[in-house]
């Protein structure tokens, strides 16, 4: 590191980051097969669509137009120009609703996964470093979380507190915290015995310093893997809850609630459910695939298989 920084044309921090990202992408492209590349591209498209939803959606997602109710997508008999993927029972544009739903689904899932990472990661770190009573307590909580099917807790919480955005995000955030906690604690216990930690302790580093400066950096890669795998679990949980009618209050739509609400119109207007259902399928497929790839490429043991 020092020889680069003291060289004649030392690259600035952002420049270095761009270069690192660029070479990361290059390596990724070189090392993967076409299926992984294709899913990565699809993932990128989904992210861009989610980010740009307010700008590219042709209609207000909640604007009703009773004159153009239940119109099929373009190309089918009775379609109405402008409504590319048709309209629902209140004349709302399916394409616009799907784009906004996608945005919400992805955003809520990311936030939930980040909360889970922060909560689970810090509890796991605390348990691993402190040991003793705090460790027993935290691991007891983990055992309880594993013992009770989370769908039940989610059902109860949302029924009691109502389907507001903060409630939903909190529920999704605590859904999988125990996975981060277990992995973090396990890694901490393993790292604690390593010579470099002993050396740090011998030279008088405080517990905090050891935790943040020496142990945390080594936790990044296992946590990134769980994070990715978790996003797809959270998307599944969110869309399942929304589908069951226990997500955000209408008219705000996520993909799951579009499928749930459209269920009643399936015989006469199947496009209302087909479009969001296929989108959910696509997202979970992409995220699962990326999670699998990430896990396989970081797990040395699996490489021999």
């Amino acid at each position, binding site marked *: 590191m020092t020889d680069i920084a003291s060289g004649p044309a030392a690259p600035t921090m952002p420049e270095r980051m761009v270069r690192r990202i660029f070479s990361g992408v290059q390596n990724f492209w070189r090392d993967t097969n076409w299926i992984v590349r294709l899913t990565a591209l699809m993932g990128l498209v989904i992210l861009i669509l989610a980010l740009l939803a307010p700008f590219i959606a042709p209609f207000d997602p909640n604007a009703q137009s009773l004159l153009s109710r239940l119109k099929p997508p373009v190309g089918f008999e009775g379609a109405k120009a402008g409504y590319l993927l048709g309209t629902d029972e209140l004349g709302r544009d399916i394409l616009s609703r799907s784009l906004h739903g996608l945005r919400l689904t992805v955003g809520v899932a990311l936030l939930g996964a980040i909360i889970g990472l922060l909560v689970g990661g810090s509890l796991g770190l605390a348990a691993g470093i402190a040991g003793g009573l705090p460790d027993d307590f935290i691991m007891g909580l983990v055992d309880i979380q594993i*013992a009770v099917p989370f769908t039940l807790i989610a059902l109860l919480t949302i*029924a009691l507190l109502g389907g507001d955005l903060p409630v939903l995000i909190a529920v999704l955030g605590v859904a999988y915290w125990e996975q981060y906690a277990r992995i973090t604690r396990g890694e901490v216990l393993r790292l604690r015995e390593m010579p470099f930690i002993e050396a740090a302790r011998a030279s008088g580093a405080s517990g905090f310093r050891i935790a943040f400066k020496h142990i945390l950096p080594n936790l990044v890669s296992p946590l990134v893997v769980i994070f990715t795998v978790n996003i797809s679990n959270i998307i599944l949980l969110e869309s399942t809850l929304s589908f*069951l009618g226990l997500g955000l209050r209408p008219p705000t739509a996520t993909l799951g609630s579009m499928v749930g609400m459209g269920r009643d119109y399936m015989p006469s207007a199947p496009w209302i459910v087909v479009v969001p259902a296929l989108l959910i399928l696509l997202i979970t497929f992409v995220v699962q695939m990326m999670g699998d790839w990430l896990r396989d490429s970081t797990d040395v043991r699996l490489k021999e298989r």
Partner: protein
Amino acid sequence: MFEYAINKIVRMTITIMVIVTGVFFATRLSGNAVDFIAGDGLGAEDRAKMITYYGLDATIWEQYWRYLRSLADGNFGISLIERRPVSTIVMERIGPSLQLLISAITVTLLISVPAGVLAALYRKSWLGSTIMSFAFLGYAIPNFVLAILLILTFSFWLGWLPSSGIGSPAHFIMPVVTLSAFYIAGLTRFTRNAMLDVLSQDYLRTARAKGLGEEKVIFKHALRNALITILSVLGLQIAGLAAAGSVVVETIFTWRGIGEMLVTAAIRRDYPVLQFGVLAVAVAVILINTLVDITYGMADPRVRLAKS
């Protein structure tokens, strides 16, 4: 061994107590139940009467004590909507749920164990990769999306199968397929990995070296050992998975089991039903898991040594 079982039972009791307590405080903290029951059109005087009637004027600790006593007495309250005892409602729902679950688990075992073994034996040929692709798909498809696609295809488009309800054997097909698709995907992957682990063990080399036929090596030595791991995982996970899966599948196919009851109660805010339903399912899952744990601890000393 005895110590191991006691340890498990103590842990189970603590977990159950935490859940019972959590459910009680969650329902109390979210507002006064009277307002949910009666709605807005209630005068102040009547509201006070109802609060006294339901015993909600007592301190929270007194209420908690009463709640524990009533649970111990087997008195689980009365549905706010159906005006019937919660225990009666739950009893009606257990049968259909069990029917669905047992069918789904049977189908799962029949398909995923052979599929996983084949995927392990032929892991480098097209057969192995095809099986694993299907397993991946089954894992990536949310079960409600699969259910919707099945209903659209087989009920509305082809008109072969009923889209909801209970009755004829035909009613079983789509719910069982949806519920087992997810289990099959997971268990096939797991069987394959367990088989691969066993296949690389030294005792298999020994078995081959002493001249056993390949068939005997695989079925007698490899599969038997892999099955121990497979069944223990199935035992530990099935209860939790079943609870989560049947909530969705029962709701979609209006299969009047426990899962559908929970969702309906959550949407209608029928708290006594929801509260007891959640407790009953959670306790059932924990009981089953503890039993499986203890059984495996008895059967396989490695398990209890690793965990203590």
